[in-house]
C-alpha cells in the first residue's frame, strides 16, 4: 500500500466521521425540540473528523520512519542475506536492487546474488504493510469512537475545534523559525570544523587569502586563510562604492517622487523604479562584466592609468549601487510620507520654501526610517553574490584603489564550494565560516534596522 492510498483512506474515514457526527448533532437538535445545542453541528463534525485524521496521520508519519528499518531487519535475518558482503557499496546496491524488484520499480536484477533477496523483501513489505494498515484503521476507529462518545447536546465542540485551529497556525509559524534555526545549526557545525583546523583569530585578522583546494583536512595550511582582504573587498564594493551611488540617487528620487512629482508622473515612475528591484541580479552581473567594467578600464586607460584591471571593484560596486537604489528610495519614500502633513504645513506656514521644508524638516524627521532603509540596503549589498561573481575578481587584495581587482566574501564562498576540493578540506569548510560571518553581520544590521524602524513608527502614532 502506497503513502497516497493510505492518506486517501484516512481522509475518507475522516469524511465519514464528519458526516456521522454531523447527523448525530443534528439529531440532538431535533430531539431537543429545535432548542439550541451548545455547538453548531458543523463543529461536532469537525471535532470528530480531527480526532480521526490527526492521530492516524501522526502514526503514519512515525510508521513510515520505522517500517523501513523493520523491513531491512527482516530481510537481513533471512538465510539469503548471509551471503551478502559485510560492508560497503556492493551491499547497499544489492539491497537497493532487490527492493526495487520487490516493489515493482524494476523488472530484474543486475547482480544475480540480489535475486535471492527479492523474496524476503516481498514478504517483509507485505507483512509490514498489512500491520501498518491495520494499526492505522484501528487508530482511526478508536479516535472516531472516542470523539463520537463525547458528542452530547451540551458538549462545546467549538472551543475544541478552535484550539485545533490555533495549534495549526502555531505550527505553521514555527516552520519558518525552525528552518532558520536549522540553517544556522548546519552553518555552525561546519564552521566549528573549520575553526578546528584554522585558528579563528588568524582567520579574522590574517591578511593573506590563498586557499589551496588540493590539501585535505589533515594538512590545512592555516596561514593561507586570512579573511581580512575579503572583508575589505566586501566593505569597499558593497558599502563604500555601492552606497556612494545608492544613497544620493535613492534619496533624491524618493524626494522627487514624494514631494515634487505630479501624480501622473508618479504613477509610472514609481513602478518603473520598483521594476529595477525585480531584475534578476545575474542580469546586473552581465551588465557589470560586459559593459561597465570594460568601459571603466578604457576610461582609466585614456586618463593615463597604468594597467587598469578589467575586473575593477568600481564596476561591481557601481552596478550594485544601481541595483540597491530602489531599496533606499522606497524606504526613504515611505518614511517621508509618514511624516505628518501638519509638520510640513507648519514649516510652509513659517514662510519656508518647499526645498527648505524638505531639507530642514521632512528629511530630519524621516531620518530614522531612512537610516534603517540604508542599513537594510547595506545588508543586501554585502550579501549580493551574482554581480560580484561575474564582475569582481578572484584576487584577494587589500587596496583602496577602486580601479584594482578585489574579491568579496560571497565570491569566495562560491569559488570554494564549487571547486574540486573535497568536502572535508579546509578550503571548502572556509566557505561555511565565511557564510557564518556574513550571516551574523547581516543579522545584526537587520536587527538594528528593524529596531530603528519600530521606534520611528511609535513616534508618529
Amino acid at each position: 500500500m502506497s503513502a497516497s492510498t493510505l492518506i486517501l483512506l484516512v481522509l475518507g474515514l475522516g469524511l465519514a466521521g464528519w458526516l456521522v457526527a454531523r447527523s448525530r448533532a443534528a439529531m440532538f437538535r431535533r430531539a431537543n425540540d429545535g432548542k439550541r445545542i451548545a455547538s453548531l453541528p458543523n463543529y461536532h463534525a469537525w471535532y470528530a473528523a480531527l480526532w480521526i485524521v490527526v492521530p492516524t496521520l501522526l502514526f503514519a508519519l512515525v510508521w513510515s520512519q520505522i517500517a523501513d528499518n523493520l523491513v531491512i531487519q527482516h530481510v537481513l535475518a533471512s538465510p539469503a542475506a548471509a551471503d551478502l558482503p559485510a560492508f560497503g557499496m556492493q551491499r547497499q546496491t544489492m539491497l537497493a536492487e532487490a527492493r526495487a524488484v520487490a516493489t515493482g520499480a524494476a523488472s530484474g536484477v543486475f547482480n544475480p546474488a540480489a535475486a535471492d533477496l527479492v523474496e524476503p523483501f516481498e514478504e517483509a513489505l507485505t507483512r509490514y504493510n498489512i500491520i501498518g494498515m491495520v494499526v492505522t484503521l484501528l487508530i482511526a476507529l478508536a479516535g472516531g469512537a472516542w470523539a463520537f462518545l463525547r458528542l452530547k447536546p451540551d458538549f462545546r465542540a467549538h472551543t475544541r475545534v478552535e484550539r485545533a485551529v490555533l495549534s495549526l497556525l502555531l505550527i505553521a509559524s514555527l516552520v519558518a523559525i525552525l528552518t532558520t534555526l536549522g540553517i544556522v545549526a548546519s552553518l555552525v557545525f561546519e564552521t566549528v570544523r573549520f575553526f578546528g583546523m584554522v585558528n579563528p583569530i588568524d582567520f579574522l585578522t590574517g591578511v593573506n587569502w590563498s586557499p589551496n583546494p588540493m590539501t585535505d583536512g589533515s594538512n590545512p595550511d592555516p596561514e593561507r586563510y586570512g579573511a581580512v582582504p575579503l572583508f575589505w573587498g566586501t566593505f569597499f564594493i558593497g558599502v563604500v562604492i555601492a552606497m556612494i551611488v545608492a544613497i544620493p540617487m535613492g534619496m533624491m528620487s524618493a524626494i522627487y517622487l514624494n514631494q515634487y512629482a505630479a501624480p501622473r508622473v508618479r504613477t509610472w515612475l514609481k513602478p518603473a523604479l520598483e521594476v529595477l528591484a525585480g531584475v534578476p541580479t545575474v542580469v546586473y552581473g552581465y551588465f557589470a562584466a560586459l559593459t561597465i567594467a570594460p568601459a571603466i578600464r578604457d576610461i582609466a586607460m585614456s586618463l593615463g592609468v597604468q594597467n587598469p584591471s578589467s575586473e575593477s571593484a568600481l564596476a561591481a560596486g557601481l552596478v550594485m549601487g544601481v541595483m540597491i537604489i530602489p531599496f533606499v528610495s522606497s524606504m526613504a519614500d515611505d518614511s517621508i510620507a509618514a511624516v505628518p502633513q501638519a509638520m510640513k504645513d507648519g514649516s510652509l506656514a513659517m514662510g519656508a520654501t518647499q526645498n527648505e521644508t524638505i531639507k530642514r524638516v521632512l528629511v530630519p524627521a524621516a531620518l530614522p526610517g531612512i537610516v534603517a532603509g540604508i542599513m537594510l540596503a547595506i545588508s543586501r549589498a554585502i550579501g549580493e553574490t551574482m554581480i560580484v561573481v561575474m564582475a569582481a575578481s578572484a584576487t584577494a587584495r587589500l587596496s583602496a584603489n577602486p580601479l584594482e581587482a578585489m574579491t568579496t566574501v560571497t565570491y569566495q564562498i562560491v569559488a570554494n564550494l564549487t571547486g574540486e576540493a573535497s568536502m572535508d578540506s579546509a578550503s571548502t569548510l572556509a566557505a561555511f565560516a565565511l557564510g557564518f560571518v556574513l550571516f551574523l553581520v547581516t543579522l545584526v544590521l537587520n536587527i538594528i534596522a528593524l529596531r530603528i524602524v519600530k521606534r520611528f513608527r511609535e513616534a508618529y502614532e
Partner: protein
Amino acid sequence: MAEIADSPLANQAKKSLEHENIETGEPKMRARDVDVYYGQKKAIDSVDIDVYTEFVTAFIGPSGCGKSTFLRALNRMNDTIPSARVTGTIELDGEDIYASGMDVVQLRARVGMVFQKPNPFPKSIYDNIAYGPKIHGLAEAKPDLDNIVEKSLRRAGLWEEVKDRLADSGTALSGGQQQRLCIARAIAVDPEVILMDEPCSALDPIATAKIEELIDELRGRYGIVIVTHSMQQAARVSQRTAFFHLGNLVEYGHTSDIFTNPVEKRTQDYITGRYG
C-alpha cells in the same frame, strides 16, 4: 431677544464692549467677494471681511461651514492643496496677495499660522523658534538669534517654563506648552497677522485658558484671526466675530452684537444652540 441678551455667553461677550471705542486705522487685511473652490465644489461663497490689528477676529460656525478654508486662504496655505482655487481679492495693506507678483514665502512670513494640533518640529525648543528667523535671515549672529528666541518665548509666555531646557526636544513638552511653542515660533519671524485654526481644540481647559490669555496680550501688536468651535471662546477672546454657515458669511460684526443682538435668524439659532 431678552433670553439671549442675558445669557452667560452674552455677558461674556459684553466685556468686549470695553474695546469698542478703540480707534482703528485702515484694516490690516481686506477680503472682497472671495470664493474658494475645491475642484468643482464651492466651499466659500462671496465673503467680504476686514481684519484689524487692534481686534481679535473670531470665525465661528458649525463643522464644514468653511471657516478654516477661508482662514487658510488668508495666507495662501490652500496652495498646498492641488484642487483648491481662490477667486476675488484678499489684500494685505492694500496689496493683493493673490496677484501674480506676490511672493508666497514673504506673505507667509508676514501672515503666520498656528494649527489645530500642536505641530512642533522634531528639533530642540531653541531650534523650533530659530527655524523661521534662520530661513528668513533675520539674525546675523548667534546673540541676535538668542535674543529673538528669548523674546518670542517670553511673548508666548513660555520662557519661564523652558529657559533651562532649550536643548530638549520640542515634542517632549506638554500639549499646551507645545501649542505656545508653536505660537512663539510664529511670533519669531515678526509677522503682522497670526491666523489660528482652532488652536485650543486639542488642549485641556487650563492650557486653553493660558492660550486665551496669551491671545489677549498679543492683540494690538499682531492682527489675530482665530477659528473656534467654542462660542464661549469666541465671546471671551474676540472683539469681532464672523459667523459662517454652509460657505456663506452670515453675519459679521462686534462680538457683543453677535452674541446679544444677532440680526440674522441663523446666527441666533446657532448661538442659542439650536443647531450646529
